[in-house]
């Protein structure tokens, strides 16, 4: 019976998505036909399906079995309304198992106003549902062919907090500046609020979360610099967000607030055959309330990754990446965490270190195969975050393997 209900639910979901895609396709194609001569409309999309197996953790599912919960679909359109105004939107369907809530969403839907441009400056204002344009991969973290790997480094791109950092409803101002002497600069600032689903709350807080987590305030800013004639590009970013939790009647948590401040420093080197990139993060998560009226905790986590991509030939790229993350920089072994939890939370929830190898093969134009394997020590980047699941995630060492086919147009 349960299986039948699940099948019906999946069937409805697929049918709804097909209708949504068909509707989007038809409307886009009709616009396309109307404006074909002026090339004002463009539409693109991607379809990705893979298989993933996390052995020794609940990263994908609780029974640790191999899973097909690695689906990413999207369709977007862009329409140049006037010389200065453009409309753009993208709808997605995602299924990542335990990593984040599955389903359809409006990824972005915005008005792009070209505020000012000359031979040195290009300034745009984006209003509507915007993305996070501040980290190396944040703007397209769900778009497989733009990522270096299937699973982004969790030290920085923690899936559990993705909805808190993926973007939201608000505005972004971007300015690109070119200096003959110093090179290219990017200045970005944005503010937006995202709607946090009850499933996202449970992923973050734990299964006893029956209340409403609300995104109250958000300010994000970044600056990038590529020195003149250099293959290096450096970036600095700051994000500051506040959340409040209103407990429901049956919630296992009390009212409370969460403040999340993150600082990033990143760099990329683009050689002919080699690409080297790194991104370092320091984040402070201040929790007040939730567990008891006067509960307060303010750990500062630190982490980051360094990776190399090697172009073996024009169709094959090879990736190697190392990353580290400490949930509390003053407790890198997790000893204090274990003590304050009365021994219920193992020390390995205090850190997560990872080594990844992978490859990307271009099978044909716009058709790609990605493969990767992760060796991981520690569970600090597993969910839930506030009350960790130490029963399922009792292994300090675990592994992850994934394969994914991607087609885009």
């Amino acid at each position: 019976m349960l299986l039948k209900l699940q099948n019906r639910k999946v069937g409805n979901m697929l049918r709804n998505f097909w209708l949504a895609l068909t509707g989007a396709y038809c409307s886009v194609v009709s616009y396309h036909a109307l404006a074909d001569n002026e090339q004002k409309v463009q539409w693109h999309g991607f379809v990705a399906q893979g298989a993933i197996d996390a052995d020794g953790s609940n990263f994908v599912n609780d029974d640790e079995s191999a899973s097909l919960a690695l689906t990413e679909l999207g369709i977007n359109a862009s329409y140049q309304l006037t010389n200065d105004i453009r409309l753009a939107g993208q709808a997605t369907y995602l299924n990542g198992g335990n990593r984040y809530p599955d389903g359809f969403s409006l990824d972005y839907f915005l008005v792009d106003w070209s505020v000012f441009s000359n031979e040195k400056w290009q300034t745009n204002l984006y209003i509507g549902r915007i993305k996070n344009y501040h980290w190396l991969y944040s703007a397209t973290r769900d778009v497989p062919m733009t990522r270096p790997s299937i699973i982004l480094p969790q030290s920085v791109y923690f899936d559990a907090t993705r909805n808190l950092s993926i973007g939201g409803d608000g505005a972004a101002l971007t300015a690109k500046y070119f200096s003959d002497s110093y090179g290219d600069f990017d200045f970005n600032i944005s503010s937006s609020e995202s709607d946090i689903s009850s499933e996202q709350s449970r992923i973050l807080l734990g299964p006893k979360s029956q209340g409403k987590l609300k995104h109250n305030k958000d300010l994000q800013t970044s600056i990038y610099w590529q020195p003149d004639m250099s293959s290096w590009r450096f970036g600095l970013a700051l994000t500051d967000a506040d959340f409040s939790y209103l407990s429901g009647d049956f919630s296992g948590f009390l009212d409370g607030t969460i403040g999340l401040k993150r600082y990033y420093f990143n760099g990329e080197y683009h050689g002919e055959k080699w690409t080297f990139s790194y991104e370092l993060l320091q984040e402070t998560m201040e929790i007040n309330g939730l567990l008891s009226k006067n509960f307060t905790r303010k750990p500062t986590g630190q982490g980051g990754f360094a990776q190399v991509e090697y172009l073996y030939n024009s169709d094959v790229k090879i990736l190697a990446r190392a990353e580290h993350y400490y949930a509390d920089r003053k407790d890198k072994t997790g000893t204090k965490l274990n003590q304050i939890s009365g021994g219920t939370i193992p020390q390995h929830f205090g850190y997560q270190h990872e080594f990844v190898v992978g490859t990307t093969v271009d099978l044909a134009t716009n058709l790609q195969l990605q493969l990767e394997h992760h060796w991981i020590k520690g569970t600090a980047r597993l969910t839930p975050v506030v009350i960790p699941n130490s029963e399922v995630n009792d292994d300090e060492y675990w592994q992850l393997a994934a394969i994914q086919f991607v087609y885009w147009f």
Partner: protein
Amino acid sequence: MFCMSMPALGSQLIAHKEVAEQELTVAQLKRIYSMRQTRWGDNTPIVLFVLPSQHQDHKTFAHQTLKILPYKLERIWNKSTFSGLGVAPIVVNSPEEMLKAVAKTPGALGYMQEISRNEQVNVIKITK
């Protein structure tokens, strides 16, 4: 291996007749094709046309003129297109289609391996 398969010919830039620019520096071209400059001097949007990534003329243009590998260009375009930040270049299938598309689209910019004096498009000089 990639370089050895390249013919020695250089690419030439073509633009719509109404585009006022008569020359572009290599640095400007890089900014245009990496989507950092999306407007002409008179503030009209630049409409980019490219050949498919696997096309030999595209590889030649990317490698010899822009000095950016085709897959890196594609990554830049995809990031912009799939985040809502910008508009991807329009892919045409052949040099003949490129010439026709650039000739009929205001603000268009494209490239060809060989083009003699042409009344349909503006041939732009590439300077250092």
